[in-house]
């Protein structure tokens, strides 16, 4: 194209003309250009050419030259499924995190505590630190590992997808996964025996774990590993170097078990020697006069009788404990009765929460007197005070919610909106409910992390208190529809909160149902708050779009940009 003079008084430059047709010039300059193009043929022609070029560009771009690809047409349905996949990924990540935390922090503590001789005097200690049940969760660990691998595979697919095209990326990732799975696993001898009366005979030695199932199971020989038994009657007369994990009506242990017994059944009688701990879900456990248990007994069931020797503690939830032997540690019981016989010797403290005081023989040797606490059956709901306080607490919560909603109405709206999608907030809520306190605890270990840990825990508590309000607001919205303003939102929250409380109060009288309902509400609400926070901290792509620049009003007889001479 040949060059023409710039805006030297004769012609306007192309930039000015383009800005003119794009309406980007201020009013005064626009009028100047308009006046000039009415008199100058060359500039007018160029102006028209630029306008035509604009129209050509717009037309070329807007023309529907190709239909929506089928991949995109089907995407909508796939996207729904992919959201499930994303949540699977979140759970996978959570599982990986828990597993990593366990192996990094808890396991070394566990070892150190065990080396230091600390026993589990409460359920949490027994479950986590003392390992009374942990090994039984082996399958859970395996599940976590699988989830962790799947998570890695998912992340791999996402990573490669950006570099290699769809099919090949998936093929690569899954081929890699298959290769990993195909690698030879560590050698682990496991034997299974079934039939009517599966037996490990007296002169037999099993190297590795053994699974036994049948009518009556007998272990008379040696098992250098764990015994997994499912039978009506189980007799352990031989030597088991690992654990005994069993389910059956009757368990008799006359031999030696170096590890733990973890079982569910009707009756267990320990006449032999158990090296570590016993966990029993069932009706009755008896440690005979000849029986010895090196560790603790944790029991959920009917009666526990100790005539022999127990190295550590008793944690008991059931009907009755009858001690007429030695207990090396503490007794913690929640149940109906505690009877301490004349031959009993208890070296640790005794805490008994029951209906009637413990019956203690004067000959019994106790390190300290029994601390008794009368069980208070919840009957407060029959008293008027109970309802008055319920109303006061409900009003206090509504007030608290009102303050929060007024302080941050936008955030409250986003939180309620997040809660209305159910799946995502509940999933995230599970993660936050368990993960955040754990993370805060870990942060508190270091001096530097202490303020952060405390702050995180404080935020978690605030979220916990607000969770029920969020759920209340969702319920309110379900009943009255979406609110139009902040006060509408508060009104719905108050209504929904009251309804939630009315439904929840009778449930809370039933322990398990109350706990499940409370956990559900907390996780849902906390998840919604977390989701709203997460969305808030995402980089904002298009908030507050700036307004268009000033466009001068168009003189008459114009086409696209400015006036043209007649």
């Amino acid at each position: 194209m040949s060059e023409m003079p710039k805006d030297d008084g004769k012609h306007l430059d192309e930039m000015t003309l383009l800005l003119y047709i794009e309406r980007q010039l201020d009013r005064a300059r626009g009028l100047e250009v308009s006046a000039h193009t009415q008199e100058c043929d060359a500039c007018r022609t160029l102006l028209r050419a630029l306008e035509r070029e604009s129209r050509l560009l717009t037309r070329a771009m807007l023309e529907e030259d190709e239909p929506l690809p089928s991949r995109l047409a089907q995407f909508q349905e796939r996207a729904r499924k992919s959201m499930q996949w994303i949540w699977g990924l979140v759970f996978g990540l959570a599982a990986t995190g828990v597993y990593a935390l366990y192996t990094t922090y808890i396991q070394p503590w566990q070892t150190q505590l065990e080396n230091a001789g600390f026993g589990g005097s409460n359920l949490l200690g027994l479950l986590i630190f003392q390992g009374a049940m942990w090994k039984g969760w082996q399958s859970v660990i395996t599940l976590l590992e699988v989830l962790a691998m799947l998570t890695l595979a998912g992340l791999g697919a996402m990573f490669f997808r950006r570099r290699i095209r769809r099919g090949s990326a998936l093929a690569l990732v899954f081929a890699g996964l298959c290769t990993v799975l195909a690698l030879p696993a560590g050698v682990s001898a496991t034997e299974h025996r079934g039939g009517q009366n599966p037996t490990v005979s007296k002169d037999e030695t099993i190297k590795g774990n053994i699974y036994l199932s049948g009518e009556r199971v007998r272990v008379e020989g040696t098992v250098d590993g764990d015994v997994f038994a499912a039978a009506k009657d189980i007799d352990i007369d031989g030597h088991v170097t690992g654990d005994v994990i069993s389910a059956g009506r009757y368990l008799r242990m006359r031999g030696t078990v170096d590890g733990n017994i973890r079982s569910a059944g009707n009756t267990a009688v320990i006449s032999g020697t158990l090296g570590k701990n016993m966990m029993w879900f069932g009706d009755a456990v008896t440690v005979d006069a000849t029986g010895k248990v090196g560790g603790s007994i944790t029991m959920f069931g009917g009666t526990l009788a100790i005539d022999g020797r127990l190295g550590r503690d008793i944690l008991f939830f059931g009907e009755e404990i009858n001690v007429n032997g030695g207990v090396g540690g503490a007794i913690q019981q929640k149940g109906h009765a505690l009877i301490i016989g004349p031959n009993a010797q208890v070296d640790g403290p005794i805490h008994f929460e029951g209906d009637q005081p413990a019956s203690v023989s004067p000959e019994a040797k106790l390190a300290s007197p029994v601390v008794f606490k009368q069980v208070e059956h919840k009957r407060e709901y029959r008293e008027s005070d109970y309802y008055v306080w319920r109303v006061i607490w409900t009003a206090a919560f509504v007030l608290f919610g009102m303050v929060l909603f007024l302080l941050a109405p936008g955030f409250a709206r986003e939180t309620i909106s997040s809660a209305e999608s159910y799946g995502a907030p509940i999933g995230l809520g599970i993660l936050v409910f368990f993960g955040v306190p754990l993370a805060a605890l870990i942060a508190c270990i270091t001096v530097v992390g202490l303020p952060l840990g405390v702050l995180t825990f404080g935020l978690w508590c605030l979220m916990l208190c607000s969770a029920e309000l969020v759920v209340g607001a969702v319920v309110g919205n379900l009943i009255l529809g979406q609110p139009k303003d902040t006060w509408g939102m508060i009104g719905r929250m108050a209504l929904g909160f009251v309804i939630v409380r009315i439904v929840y109060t009778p449930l809370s009288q039933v322990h398990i149902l109350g706990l499940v309902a409370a956990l559900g509400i907390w996780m849902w609400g906390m998840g919604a708050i977390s989701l709203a926070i997460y969305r808030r901290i995402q980089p904002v792509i298009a908030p507050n779009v700036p307004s268009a620049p000033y466009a001068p009003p168009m003189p008459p007889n114009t086409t696209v940009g400015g006036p043209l001479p007649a």
Partner: protein
Amino acid sequence: MSAPGITQPTEAIARARAGDADAWGELYREYAPAIFRFCRRALPTREDAEDATMEIFMKLKDKLIQYDATRSFSAWLYKVSANHCWDMLRRRKIRQDKETEDVENVPLEHPDPNQLDQLIEQRTSEEVRKALDKLGGRARMALVMRYYSDMSYDEIADALGVRRAFVGVVLLRARHELRQALEGNAALAAGGAS
């Protein structure tokens, strides 16, 4: 908006924000063709455009909460799409540093109006689209934002990360590149025919 000419789907947006999958589906069906075309014009290959469209709509699920309902939904959606496409191009280093340097030095020539007129007259939409494919990332992106989705100079400046005052220069330079590509195509066609 110039492209889809769609009325504001206020109800569907509200329901989609509340997590209604059907409402999200409605929005997708309504807007996916326009967004795909936007991506098709802005990105080098059809496959890129497909990927980008899906990613934009996946992103939209999270971003919808940030949408200010008092503004045009399609304008907001185009802005999200423009940012996404420009990010894609930038990640692939299609954005040329040279362009940043040269952007202030573009010659403001006065082309021969008749010759320009003739060039435009003889070109079809298809030829223009083919010529667009030959442009640099920034030039194509600027033209698409302006002439497909009718974005303002402020929005274009924001998306491309240039000062508003240079948007006109970027657009003019893009037009020059386009004319050269059109002339090149014509020469190629003439050479092929002879």
